[in-house]
Structures are given as C-alpha cells and as structure tokens.
C-alpha cells in the first residue's frame, strides 16, 4: 500500500514537473528521482522487474552504447525502458523507472537497458536485479571529482566478487579485463575485441592508464595501440591478456564505415574506432539474447553532440563531446584522419560538473593537429589558447573568446569544414549557439 502511495505521488509530481519543465525549459531527468529518494530512500527495491536488466558502464561511450543497445533491441520488435538521456546516477535511474512503471511499481517491458555511472554500479545493483553488465573502458577523468581511476575500478571489482550474471568486457583494455577475474566462479564472462585498424600505432601516442599488470606489477607489453591504452596487450610474466574471445570484430574500414564479425559484414554510420568498440558491445548483447544487430547498426546514429553532423549554411560541421583527455584525443584523431581542409572550435568550461581542474588539456595531442585555424571559447578559453600555443601551433591562427556567440560568429567567417569539440557543460550551450547562428544567418 505504501509503495502505491509513493508511486502515485511520483506520478502526480511527474505530471506537474512536465508542465513546469516546459515552462522553465528545464530538464527534469534527475529531479523526480531526487525528491522521491528523499521520501523513500529504498524506492529502487520496490519496483517489480520481470525482464532482463542490461547495464553499461565506462568512462567514455556509456550514452552511445546504451542508446545503441536499446535501438537494437527495439529493431527486434521488443519493448525497452531505458535512461537514454544519460541520467546515469541513482536518482536518474529512479526517475526513468518511475516514469515507466504502473501504479503498483511494475515495469512493463521486455528489457530494461541502463547506462550507469561507474561509481554507482554497486549502489544501484544492490537494489535491482542485474542480468548483464557491459564494461567498456576506464580512462582518467576529472581527477578532482572522481579521484584516481584505480579507486573506481576497485569499487566495481568488489561488487563483481558476488555477481554471477553476464559480464561483457572489452578485451583490449587492461583496466577492464581484470574485472573478469573478480569472481572465479562466474562462468558468464564474455570478452569482445576489435582487430588492429588502419591507424593503430606501435607506441602509445595518447595519455592512458593500465601500464602495469594488476596482478604482479609487471610492465605490460603491447603488440599495438588502437587509441589511448586500448590495444592488444599481454603481461610477459603471468600471461594476463590472453582471454578467449566471444566477439571479435575484424577488417574495420572507417572510410566505407564497415567491419566484419564472424564472417558477417556490418555497415554502420560510425567513422571512428571508439564507436566500433561500442558496437562490439552491442553485438555481444545481441548474441547473448539471440537478437539481430546488423539491421540496427546500419542506421543507428546518436544526434546529441556525439559525432553529430549539422549543416550551417552549406558548411559541414561536426560536433563532438570530450570530457577527458581520451575523449578529446579520439575526436582529434577523427579530425586528423579526415583529409579535407578544416577549422576547429574547442569550448572548455570549468563548472563543477566538468571538474574544476583544467590541467588535463595538456594530455590532449595538439602537436599533430591538422587544421588551419583554431578558435577557443568557454570559461577557460584562454587556458585552452595557451595550451594550443605551447604545442607550437602558430599563435596568429588561434583566437580566444569567452563568449560562445562571438566564437561561433568568427568560426563561420570562412566556409571550410568545421569541427567543434566541447566539454561536458559546454556542449549544450555550444550546440544552441550553433543552431541559433544558423537560424539568424538564414534570415539575412
């Protein structure tokens, strides 16, 4: 009876929040969960879930992968409940489930797919049953907020010691593979891998973690690096890294946006290596649940500042989110692999959600960046300009503007192709400024 009451309150609140949200033009992705959690701290345990729950966690790629899994399952004719907007902490997940449950707390769906913040995996799945957990990668990320990567990995490792559901792991990240050893009795550990691609390197070219074997502190040996510390590694002492593969992606062709898996050709909309890894996870899930992934991956595209392409008065513009060094480096990798003439706008904020420390921009490889002009903006526009200048990029081709509107205006003073990279809180204001600029200049 109590549960029904709480959920009723939630439903009523949600109704008003929707109206209020529309008036205030504010997102209510966490608010409802926050309020209800105050009233009923264990609300997550009250839901009646009778379908498999699939979760994705990682430093980078959570939102894309979760959305792709949802899209894939729906293409197979099933009903999915998911937190597709990236509200990945406990309150965001509560909100998602509240919005999609009956008055008795029943979730009517064939699958629930969730992206979950790394540090919330143990918190959330103590309270709701978990059928499959996908772990994509661990990179350094907002050190002043999250602390060292190692602390996060240990948290998830602790949770996995008593977990015996499906565990789908990226075999090319030494920080991830170790999680497969957390529970020796779990027979449901599956590894996926992507074979060496065209721009893989012999040496590590981007900042990364996982240099030492987690079991005996020996320096790991790499056959090649795909990006950051993702690649084919092995511990020369204990052999760590030699796992049997469940899914192996081969013949990655980024120009034609295709790859092969077990003899089958996949055509996608992804022209970068890190998205191929996300898709390898999607294919793993498809195989585990006997679903088809080929059709879904053919047209899956997430248009929310994740390699999003827009046309601004005939000028092709690609927007990409980059919250940490690896995110920025893979974006620049994509830019460098594109041989067309282009310019770059980099927007950097230091709001609490971004992390207050901007030192990480020195882990971005501007030394090899292949553009004519770079414009910086955001609260830390000048820090960014200094970073780019000290990489010996000609300072006369760098412009810094605190105001995003001014930055955008200057960006389109030429009509070559544009790449836009923005960090977390900078992304939506940047998209907005771009779209508004498009609207304004169209009228003229």
């Amino acid at each position, binding site marked *: 009876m109590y549960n029904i009451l709480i959920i009723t309150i939630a439903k009523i609140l949600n109704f008003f929040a929707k109206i209020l949200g529309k008036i205030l033009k504010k997102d209510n992705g966490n608010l409802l969960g926050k309020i209800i959690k105050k009233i009923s701290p264990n609300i997550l345990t009250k839901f009646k879930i009778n379908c498999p729950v699939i979760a994705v966690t990682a430093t980078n790629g959570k939102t894309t992968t979760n959305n792709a899994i949802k899209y894939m399952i729906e293409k197979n004719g099933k009903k999915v409940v998911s937190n597709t907007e990236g509200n990945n902490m406990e309150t965001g997940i509560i909100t998602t489930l509240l919005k999609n449950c009956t008055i008795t707390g029943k979730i009517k769906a064939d699958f629930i797919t969730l992206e979950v913040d790394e540090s919330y995996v143990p918190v959330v799945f103590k309270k709701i049953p978990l059928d499959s957990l996908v772990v994509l990668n661990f990179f350094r990320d907002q050190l002043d907020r999250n602390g*060292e990567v*190692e602390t996060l990995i240990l948290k998830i490792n602790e949770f996995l010691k008593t977990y015996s559901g499906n565990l789908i792991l990226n075999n090319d990240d030494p920080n991830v593979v170790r999680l497969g050893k957390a529970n020796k009795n779990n027979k449901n550990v599956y590894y996926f891998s992507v074979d060496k691609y065209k721009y893989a390197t012999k040496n590590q070219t981007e900042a990364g973690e996982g240099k030492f074997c987690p079991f005996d502190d020996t320096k790991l040996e790499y056959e090649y690096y795909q990006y950051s510390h993702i690649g084919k590694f092995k511990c020369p002492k204990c052999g760590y890294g030699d796992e049997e593969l469940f899914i192996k992606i081969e013949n990655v062709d980024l120009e034609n946006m295709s790859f092969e898996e077990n003899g089958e050709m996949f055509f996608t909309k992804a022209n970068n290596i890190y998205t191929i890894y996300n898709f390898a996870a999607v294919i793993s899930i498809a195989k585990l649940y006997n679903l088809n992934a080929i059709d879904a991956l053919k047209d899956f595209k997430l248009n929310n500042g994740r390699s999003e392409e827009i046309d601004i008065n005939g000028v092709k513009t690609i927007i990409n989110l980059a919250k940490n060094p690896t995110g920025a480096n893979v974006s620049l990798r994509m830019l460098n692999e594109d041989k067309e003439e282009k310019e770059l706008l980099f927007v950097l904020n230091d709001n609490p959600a971004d992390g*207050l*420390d901007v030192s990480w*921009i020195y882990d971005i490889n501007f030394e090899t960046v292949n553009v004519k002009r770079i414009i910086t903006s955001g*609260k830390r526009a000048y820090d960014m300009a*200094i970073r780019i200048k*000290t990489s010996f990029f000609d300072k006369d081709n760098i412009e810094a503007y*605190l105001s995003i509107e001014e930055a955008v205006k200057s960006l389109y003073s030429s009509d070559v192709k544009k790449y836009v990279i923005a960090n977390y809180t900078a992304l939506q204001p940047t998209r907005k400024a771009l779209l508004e600029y498009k609207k304004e200049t169209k009228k003229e």
Partner: protein
Amino acid sequence: MRELKLLYLYPDMLELYGDYGNIQVLKYRLEKRNINLIIDRYSIGDKKPDFTSYDIVFAGGGADNEQSILSKDLIKFKDDIKEAIKNGVFFLLICGAYQLFGKYYKGVEGNIIPGLGIFDYYTEAIKDRSKRCIGNIVLEVNLNGDKYEVIGFENHGGQTYNVKNCFGKVLVGNGNKFEDKEEGYFINNVIATYLHGPLLSKNPKLTDYIIEYCLKRKYEEEIKLEPLDDTFEEKCREELFKVLEIKKEIR
C-alpha cells in the same frame, strides 16, 4: 645555438595531472628565443642518468600505487641528486615528486613510503580519504625581490609538515596543509610544490625566472630575456583573478 638540457624523471609513471605541460611551456619559451631544449627521459630499468650534466631536472605527480613502486628506484640516486642540487642544477618538483624529496610519505593505512630525505619536510595522508585539498590556488611568490602571483590548481590528500622555506604565501586556497598560509618548498635552485595547472602555463614570469637562472649558470653571464607575446597568458590571469576574487568575497 644555445641549449639547455632537461632530465624528465619517470615520464611513464609521474604523468597524472598534465604536469608534462611544464616541459612543454619551458620548451616553447626557450625555442621562441632561439634556445634549444634537449629532453632526456629516465624511467625504471633505464641506464643511470648523470644528474650533474643537466641544467634542469623535472618530475611530476602520479597515482599512489605507482609512486610507491618508483620510490624504491629513486632512492638509489640519493647521493647523485644531492650532489646535483649542490652544484646548482635546477629542480622543478610537482606534487608527488615534491613529497618524494622529503623524509617520508605516510599513507592512509599508516604505511610509510620512504622519501629521498634531501629536505627536512615530511608528508602524512589525511585519515579521511574523502578529504583532500582541492581547488584553484593563488600564491604570492618572491622572485629575486619581485612579488609575483602564481596561479595553479591543488589536489592532494597529503599534508606536508616542517617546511623551512615555503614557495609562496597562500592568497586563495589551502597550501601545504588544510587552510595553511604557506605552500611548497623553495630554495634558489629548487621549486617543490603541489601546484598543477600546469604550474608554468599560467605563470610566464616564473618560467622566465627558471630559464634565466639556468642560462646564467650555464653561460656565466648576465641574461636579458627577449620579451614574448603573452597576451593569452595575461588575459587568462586577469580572468582568473576576477573569478577567484569574487569567490573570496562570498567566503
């Protein structure tokens, strides 16, 4: 062409907070003045470096685990490093490296990582893991008699005690300990500090102080550095002073 030689210690282990950027900034400000910077790297397993043959030695901050692995290696060079400091080689030590040059680092569980013991200070981790000195920090530093505000970012759980000559007075932020008035350690040719940012990126005068010191020592003559276009640096500093002072008033 003139040149300076820099030794970069443990680049694969002490590289967590973008501290490499300090070398990048040094290189930039040297090369814009037609002075070459040669960078040699040393890490575990490499041939022992000849510390006294360098003009600058640099080391940064790393993850806890990696710091305890390398402390054993570093201690082998204690006498050579002492000799180099006596000789006037410039040492720039950030965060973890700052701690490693002191007597010891005592971890949360009471475990002791021995330091080089070259300086008298020592560091103890705060018991509560969630408590760290984190945030933007501004110091007032004395560079050859000139006062200069040094801007950076601190992120450390360790509390450093018994520092004889601090690097600077804290204007905004914590310093060697929670709500301390002093930050870092500074003698003529050693700067040891918690400041990331990276330290040199927002403080061109500090970078030039180090460059001048090294050139003077190497070429034994008065050095007048050619001024560079520091428009971005000046605007960056102005903006941060503005933001941080507003925050100071709210406090």
